[in-house]
């Protein structure tokens, strides 16, 4: 084996190891993503569902008691603000705009973020506008003078 051949071989090996390590890094990243979603808790899907259902049912009760205490005069702002708040599904949309995600997912994600943002900004602004108008007798008088 001539030195030149040897050098060629070493070069090839080096390239190969480079691509190997690249591949490893990317796959490790993906593995992390999958583990991250499956939850580090190691729960299987059935157990996850039970936990999620527990959270869900308790949240329904919280919602029930909190909403009954809302004064009827503020039912319109309540609808506007819950509308803004339910746009928290933007969280789901953000997952889709990963650089390596398929195009269709990115498009769907982009659209969902856009729609949810209209709602979030619009909902909170309109709620603020409504709430700023509710004044007592004294506040109304104070504003005029």
């Amino acid at each position, binding site marked *: 084996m001539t030195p030149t051949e040897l050098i060629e071989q070493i070069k090839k090996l080096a390239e190969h190891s480079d691509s190997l390590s690249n*591949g490893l890094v990317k796959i490790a990243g993906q593995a992390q993503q999958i583990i991250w979603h499956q939850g580090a808790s190691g729960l299987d899907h059935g157990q996850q569902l039970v936990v999620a259902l527990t959270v869900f049912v308790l*949240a329904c009760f919280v919602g029930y008691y909190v909403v009954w205490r809302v004064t009827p005069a503020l039912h319109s702002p309540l*609808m506007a*603000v819950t509308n803004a708040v339910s746009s928290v599904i933007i969280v789901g949309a953000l997952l889709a705009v*990963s650089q390596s995600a398929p195009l269709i*997912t990115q498009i769907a994600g982009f659209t969902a*973020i856009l729609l949810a943002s*209209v709602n979030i900004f619009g909902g909170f602004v309109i709620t603020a506008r409504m709430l700023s108008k509710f004044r*007592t*007798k004294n506040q109304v008088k104070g504003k005029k003078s």
Partner: protein
Amino acid sequence: MNLTQSGLLYLLAAVLFIFTLRGLSSPTSSKWGNFFGILGMVVAIVTTILMIPEIDYVLTISAIIIGGTIGTVIALRLQMTALPQLVAAFHSLVGLAAVFVAMAAFYAPEYYGIATMANTGFIEVFTEHPYYEPVKNLVFKTGSLIELSIGLAIGAITYSGSLVAFAKLQGIVGGKPLVFRGQHMLNAVLFLTIIALIVLLVQQQSSWLLWLLAFVAVVFGFLLIMPIGGADMPVIVSMLNSYSGWAACGIGFTLNNYLLIITGALVGASGAILSYIMCKGMNRSIIKVVLGGFGASASGATSSSTPDKPIKTGSAEDAAFIMKNARLAIIVPGYGMAVAQAQHVLREMADLLKKEGVRVAYAIHPVAGRMPGHMNVLLAEANVPYDEVFELEDINPEFATADVAFVIGANDVTNPSAKTDRSSPIYGMPVLEVEKAKTVLFIKRSMASGYAGVENPLFFRDNTLMLFGDAKKVCEEIVKSLA
């Protein structure tokens, strides 16, 4: 950011959202409530962005900026009277966003953690493709796919249903219910189709089933809301509010994200309670409202019987004179006031009356207007202090001591036959007892019966004075006479 940190921050956001709703228990604390909501949303979004390894910042930020600008501009320019249709339109956007999230998750399950590896393991994939290839042999977890398709279906129904509600409120489509034969059958068939499609989708996992499901759900949403009339809209808007929450919940279950589940449940519960309150305000069951058709054919039958009975009509000067000499005047606003945009001139009138020493109070029926709390917002917009505005239970005993009840653009909610006439379609509905006041002034455009198609016997009583005309014009004339 790791899972523990993001989990805690999501919890913080959820608690902030609970405080948002809690803040609305009184107008003074409500501004804080809205602030908590904004804070919660910022926490949720920033946490998520920091959590995703290779998020496309350009795409994300530009979507937020474009959407945010559109939303802000719409919300700032909006006329308060157009509030119900705006809320309906916003609900439709939440529904559509849920559909897109479900689609995104379906096409890239590995990013949402809802797929498991098929037989091929990591090592094999790795050796075959040293240059990373997206892992193709993924299978959906059954449970996740069920949750995903339910989220998608509810989202699609919310989308099209709210669109119809928007069109009806905006006047693009007539407010009259659209009824045809076999409607309920068709809806039942569509509903069963949706369930069958979900089952099929879970078994076959093919994308055309997902698109078909979305399509059928959209059609179902249209047909569901089409037969429901204008004045039932408070219930429908609340119901769709509730749906938008459940759609978020469905997506939350798919992603196993507790923030989405909690928030969705809060919104869902809120909408459900509002629907219940609205139904109670009309003494109708939610099922009957959803089945629709109310008030579709009633208007023709009753109007023919009206001409033979005597009514007293009056002029704006008469009304001004009567009210000037009153001690307590109770104003009962209804949807007609919103349509005529009469709230500002109404407040002017009330100011002039107050100068004359008249005590003025406002009485709000739970279903007055086209969405819950509609009248309260309009009055607040016109600078009516909220401590002069009363709910039905609080104001009803006052009517007996009132000299004047001034009914502007309301009808059915004052109809005493709801208490006495068992055959009336609105029997059992709680009403404002305006008939107990010494004089009742009715501002109406014509003698036409209200939404329920029921004649109001109050019009023919001796102590009732009818003022025909546009609510705003009549109020302006009264203001002129008072000044």
